[in-house]
């Protein structure tokens, strides 16, 4: 195993664990909801996900993916999310729809 890969995994894994576990140790509900730190923390996650979503979809709409499977995949993700409110189901359903229409 490459040491730099293990180091990256350890650093990211430790931070992810800290983000998940520390709120149980230190009650973050004490932070002022209107304080800038609360707002920065609340906005960082949505900003990261929006950035990653934009970057992952951009190559597809630029022509890297055939339009019909792409439309079916995106439609399935949105439809399943609206129907069941499940990230896993929407992800799997979107991939399944993309692959199925691709095969036709």
């Amino acid at each position, binding site marked *: 195993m490459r040491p730099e890969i293990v180091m990256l995994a350890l650093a990211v894994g430790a931070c992810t664990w800290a983000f998940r576990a520390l709120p149980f140790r230190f009650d973050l509900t004490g932070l002022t909801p209107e304080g800038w730190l609360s707002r*920065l923390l609340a906005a960082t996650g949505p900003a990261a996900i929006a950035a990653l979503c934009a970057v992952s979809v951009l190559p597809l709409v630029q022509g890297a993916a055939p339009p019909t499977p792409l439309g079916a995949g995106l439609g399935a993700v949105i439809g399943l999310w609206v129907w069941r409110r499940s990230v896993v189901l*929407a992800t799997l359903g979107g991939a399944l729809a993309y692959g199925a229409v691709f095969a036709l």
Partner: protein
Amino acid sequence: MGEARAQFGQGVVAGLPVVLGYFPIAFSFGVAASRAGFSAAEATAFSLIVYSGAAQFLAVALLAAGTPLLVAGFTLVAMGVRHLAYGPALMKHAGQGRTRRAWIWAFGLTDEVFGVALGDLARGRRFSEAFMAGLGLAAYLAWVSGSWAGALAGGGALAAYPAVEAGLGFMLPALFLALLLSILSRRQMPVILIAAGVTLGVTLAVSATAGILAGMLAGALTGALRRATA
């Protein structure tokens, strides 16, 4: 002890839908990691240690694109900040003093595990650390075994099945789109629009890595400054 064991078992059962969903997504992570040059041991170690699907897919994409390790690390850590919101939401149901072992089971507090736990609590289940441990462990084992299987199958394993390969290739955009839908709210809309807009602009002008960083910073600053300038 019997009560804790029963709660643990109920957690495992409650986690079965997550298990069924996680295995194929983790399999596609293993395939993607193998395709990007990760060994099976490296891909499995990533799942064992990091255990965050979105961060892991992104790590593979960043490292394959030659992104410097520090930049990749910063981006991946920033992605995980959203998990800070899960603890306080569960604490409301748990009450003080009933999360003594949270430092162990919170390792498995992924988006979906949090969603299942919160759903069960909303339907009247009493909070239990043993239930959280069972739920989290079932999902974790599915994630790690799926990654391992995908990495062993390797990048070329699906060459004979182009439709399956195409579907798995769509898994990452589908995952990020689903995650985006899950956090969509009127309050966060300016943050999301600014982050996506800046990301697209900088990606087209410079590179995807610069676009992600610029978009994340712009979105986070929008959230921090919004009320002050309103």
